[in-house]
C-alpha cells in the first residue's frame, strides 16, 4: 500500500483504520481528499497506492464505523463522502489509547537508549 516511505505492510494495515478515522473526525470527506490529507500530514513522505484506500473505507463502512453517501461537488462531479459514526468514534477512542501506549513505550525505550549514549560520552 505504501510506495514512498518503506513502512512494513503489517504496520500500514494496522495504521490505516485509525488514520482514516482520525481524518474523518475532522469532518466528512471523500477518498481523494483523504489521500491528499495523508500526503500533507506526512509532508509527502507517506504515499499510498491510491486505490487501496477504498477497500479500507468500505471495510470501515461494513463495520459500521463510517457512513457513506453520494453527493455532488461544486464542479458537478459525484463523490462518495464518508462520515464518522458514533461506533467509529468509539473505535477511534480505543485505537488512540492503544497507539498512545505503543508510542509511549517505544519512546521510553528509545529515549533511554539516547540517554545511555549521552552518559557514555
Amino acid at each position: 500500500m505504501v510506495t514512498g516511505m518503506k513502512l512494513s505492510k503489517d504496520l500500514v494495515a494496522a495504521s490505516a483504520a485509525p488514520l482514516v478515522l482520525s481524518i474523518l473526525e475532522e469532518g466528512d470527506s471523500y477518498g481523494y481528499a483523504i489521500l491528499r490529507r495523508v500526503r500533507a500530514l506526512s509532508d509527502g513522505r507517506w504515499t499510498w497506492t491510491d486505490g487501496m484506500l477504498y477497500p479500507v473505507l468500505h471495510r470501515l463502512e461494513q463495520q459500521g464505523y463510517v457512513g457513506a453517501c453520494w453527493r455532488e461537488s461544486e464542479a458537478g462531479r459525484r463523490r462518495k463522502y464518508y462520515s464518522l459514526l458514533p461506533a467509529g468514534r468509539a473505535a477511534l477512542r480505543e485505537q488512540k489509547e492503544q497507539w498512545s501506549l505503543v508510542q509511549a513505550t517505544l519512546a521510553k525505550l528509545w529515549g533511554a537508549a539516547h540517554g545511555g549514549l549521552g552518559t557514555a560520552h
Partner: protein
Amino acid sequence: MADLERLIEAWRRSLAAFGVGPDELAELESHLRDDVDRLRREGISDERALEQATARLGPPQALAAEFARTAAPARWLPLPVTAGALGVLALLLAGVLLDRLLTGRVSVLLAAHLLTVTVGYSTTLAVGVLAAAYVLRRTQGDLSPGQTHGLARGLAVLNGAAGALTAIGFVLGGVWAQEHLGRFWTWDPREIGAVCVLAWDVLLCVLILRRLCADSLAVLLGLAGSALTYLAWFGAVSLSAGTYGRGSVAAAHTVVLLVHVVFFCAGLVQARRLARGATA
C-alpha cells in the same frame, strides 16, 4: 478531451473485467478524474496525466483482488431463515383469514387487524428469538464484525416492519372498537400493550440505524422487545380475560420472562468476556 474520455472508458472496462462492481468503479473514476484534473492544472498533458493517475491508483487486478477481500461477508443464516419463516406465517394466516372472510365469519376490518397485529407481534418476538440464537452462537465464537453489523441492520428492518404492521393493526383495531364499542381507545391492556410494542419497535430501529449503541448490544436488546411483546400479547390477553392471576398462567408468564432475562444477562456477560479476549 474526447481521447481522454475514451481512455477512461477503456480503464473502466479493464477494471470491470476483473469483477470490480459499478459502485466501486464510480468511486474510483471520481478519484481518477480529480487526480487527472490536478495534474492537468500542473501543465501535464491529458494522456500523461491519465497515465500517472491510473498508475497511482494501482493495477486493476490488485485493486479487484483487494475489493473482493472486503466484499460483504456471508449473512448469518438464521436471519434470512427467520425472515422467510415470517413470510410463510403471514401467507398462511392470510389464507386462513381469507377463508373466514369469504364464509362471513369475520369482517374485512377485523381480518386486516388480526393479520397485521399477529404478523407484527410475531416479528418482534422473532427478533427476540434471533437474539437468543445469537447468544447461543457466540458460545462457539463470535460472529465477524460484518456479520454482526448485517444482523443488527437486519433486525432494524424486521423491527421497522413490525412497527409498521403493529401501527396499522392498532389503528384498524381502534376503528373496529369505534364501530362496535363506540370508542377508539378503551384503555384495554391489549391497546396499551400495542402502543408499548410500537414505541419499542421504533426505538430499537432508531438505535440501530442511527448507530446509537454497539451492534452486539442492539441485537441483545431484541430480547427486551420480545419480552415486552409477550406481555403485550399473551399477558394482556390473560389480563383482559381475567386469568392473569391464575397459578398456571402466572407461572407460564414468569418462566417466559425469566428465560428472556437469563439470555439477556448471559449475552451481556458473554460480550464482556469476548471483548476481554479480543484485547488480551
